[in-house]
């Protein structure tokens, strides 16, 4: 009769260590060593590609270093930060970015939730509809920018052609101050509404059906059910989607570059686009690093405040 195998163990991994090591495995390589060996490639990659560049940019942000001029980097401490925070040019770009983020994310949230709500009420073809709505999100922003640029062209674009056939006049979508920013918001909304829709749809399908059944027994109206059941349960999930989108929109570069190049003038230049110009037109690497670090700090601080609000909402 053989010995009975242990039923439980304090450390699941120890059960394996009772068995003889596989042939060829070094006796000195413990489980922990093995774990370190496995995670070290990813860790090294993370350090080399993310942590080091961030620390290096932080160091450069306190200097007057220029990547093309070369020469030693002189410490100027917080002078880059002071110049950025007091620059009227930066304030202008910050305002443009704020209007853009607010406009785009609000529109995407309303539309995304509305589409998700309508899809969730369908019983047939829901999967197909969801897949179709997700297509814009899967495209490269550069491709999206290029074909919208053609569509919005005042002379040859299909949008103005359609407006013309309806008897409406030509609109200068990309070359007027107001319409250029609106065009950017519309194109971003076209591409990223599906993201909000997807997350809202996940929230909507997770709402327990018995709540609606109870409400219909009480003869609650559609609006009452939406206001007291659907929205409160989906709201926290929707807020997380809004957070992701707001961070993405804050970093907007590609659509601006392709659609308007920041124009007319600098009226659609976002903060990211301005950082690009500072970094690559004059190769002011120190200033651009400080600019980038400040943008990261703003995102971190706002995200922390937002997450606290989310936690508070959860506790309530």
């Amino acid at each position, binding site marked *: 009769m053989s010995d009975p195998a242990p039923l439980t163990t304090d450390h699941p991994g120890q059960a394996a260590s009772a068995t003889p090591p596989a042939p060829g495995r070094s006796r000195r390589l413990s489980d922990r060593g093995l774990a370190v060996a496995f995670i070290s490639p990813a860790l090294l990659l993370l350090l080399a590609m993310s942590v080091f560049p961030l620390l290096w940019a932080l160091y450069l942000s306190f200097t007057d270093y220029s990547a093309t001029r070369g*020469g030693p980097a002189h410490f100027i401490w917080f002078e880059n930060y002071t110049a950025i925070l007091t620059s009227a*040019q930066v304030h202008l770009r910050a305002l443009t970015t704020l209007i853009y983020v607010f406009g785009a994310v609000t529109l995407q949230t309303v539309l995304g939730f509305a589409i998700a709500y309508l899809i969730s009420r369908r019983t047939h073809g829901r999967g197909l509809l969801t897949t179709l709505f997700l297509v814009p999100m899967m495209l490269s922003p550069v491709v999206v920018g290029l074909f919208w640029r053609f569509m919005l062209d005042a002379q*040859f674009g299909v949008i103005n052609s359609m407006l013309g056939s309806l008897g409406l006049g030509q609109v200068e979508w990309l070359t007027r101050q107001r319409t250029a920013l609106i065009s950017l918001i519309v194109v971003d909304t076209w591409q990223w509404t599906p993201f909000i829709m997807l997350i809202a749809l996940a929230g909507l399908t997770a709402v327990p059906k018995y709540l609606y059944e109870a409400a219909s027994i009480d003869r609650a109206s559609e609006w009452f059910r939406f206001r007291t059941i659907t929205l409160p349960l989906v709201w926290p999930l929707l807020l997380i989607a809004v957070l992701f989108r707001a961070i993405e929109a804050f970093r907007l570069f590609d659509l601006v570059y392709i659609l308007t190049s920041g*124009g007319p003038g600098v009226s659609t230049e976002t903060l990211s686009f301005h950082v690009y*110009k500072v970094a690559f037109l004059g190769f*002011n690497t120190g200033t651009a690093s400080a600019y980038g670090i400040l943008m990261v700090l703003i995102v971190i601080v706002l995200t922390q405040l937002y997450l606290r609000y989310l936690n508070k909402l959860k506790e309530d």
Partner: protein
Amino acid sequence: MRYPKRIGRLSVPGRKVQLATAAMLVATTVAACGGQDDGAKASAPKAPATIPELTKDPLTLSFIWFDWPPAHALEAFANAEYKKERPNATIKVNTVPNANWHDAIFTQFAAHKTDFDIPILDSQHIGEAVTNGNILDITDFVKTNIDVKAYNPYLLAAYGQFPQAETGKRDENASLYGLPLLGDTWTMIYRKDLIGDKPPQTWDQMISVAEKCQTDHPGVSGLAFHQANGSDAAAVTYNTVNGVYGGNLWDSKTRKIDGVLNDTAGQEAMDVLVNKMKPLTAKGSGNWFIDEVNAAVAQGKACIAFNWIAASGGLLDPKQSTLGTTREQILDKLGFATLPSQKTNLVPLGGMGMHVSAYSSKTNQAEALNFMKWFERADIQKKWAAAGGVPSRKDALESPEFLNAGPFNQVYTDSVPRMRDMWNVPEYARLVDIENTNVNAALNGAKKPKDALDDIAKEQQGVLDSGSRKGGGGL
């Protein structure tokens, strides 16, 4: 027996990992700091006076340029002709979008490693490349190998000399960093069938002819020109009108822009551009550049247009035009002329020179110098002209090979003595961006013309004066 885990102290392997990580970060930082010393030199390294021995092994000589017809023409021409003398050499002209041209070259210069041997720089980029030590000083090489007297001195200076040539005269004592590859300037393209065979002679006349043409032919705009805020599009347009109306971009001796650019002549030029020329353009043309202007001409949507000569070849292609089914039919409708004059007869200098990357291998640098010597030969310049290129040698400019190759080539030859360039200073990229964005804003109603011009002068002056400023450079 289980021992309680000690709190606040890592196990030995954990500490080792942390120590190794810290050591790696320190080592990488030190290595990166050490790398900066490479860039301490602030002047261009010298190329040898004579061409070193060339390799007999297969070799690829790489250029970098922006994507337009002359880039493809150069690759085809060089591979067909240069290979006859150097069968082991292959020419590769790498192209990038026009808007990325400067960045694509200078980000590689910043890395002190280039995948190209011959960067084709805009004439105004030379200052930035020279002061950063990115391209070779070829003064001695030119003295030994190139017949400089064969060139129009201003073209030789514009595409190779630094500091910049003033008033169109070459400084014999200045160093040379490049040789001409492609000359260029604006041509006026006009519809002979709409405004007559004779092109307008003055700028004011041109505006009134365009106005009449627009009124007489609904659906066709009076003018088409560059207005975009990318590259140097809107800036070249304003600088052209500024020159024609007697304005100056700056006082190069005192490095003064504010008060010079926005003087009375400058204000008049901005007024003409925004209030007289812009109303004659197509609606929504505020982001037009080379391709859009060509498209408007080819589709018969403009009475008079301005474009770079080197980019005008496609206008004669019946496949791209609605003006005729043959080249002759198109030429019955399209005319090409030098720009009208007004208070002066200045025209913008376009085109580019060839340079040698300081970070290319010695073998490829030697091949690059050999290519430049070959390319500047009289017979090769004439062949290049016949292949669609725009040469800079005087004999090639007057040759039938060049003058018969395109209807706009005579325009170039006639325009050479009238050329004016922009500022050839290391701060060029920022100066042109300031001008581009503000002129574009004025053209599209985002700024009043006077405010835009004053902002250009003030901001550009700020860039030139910012040498002693410590923080916030580039804002």
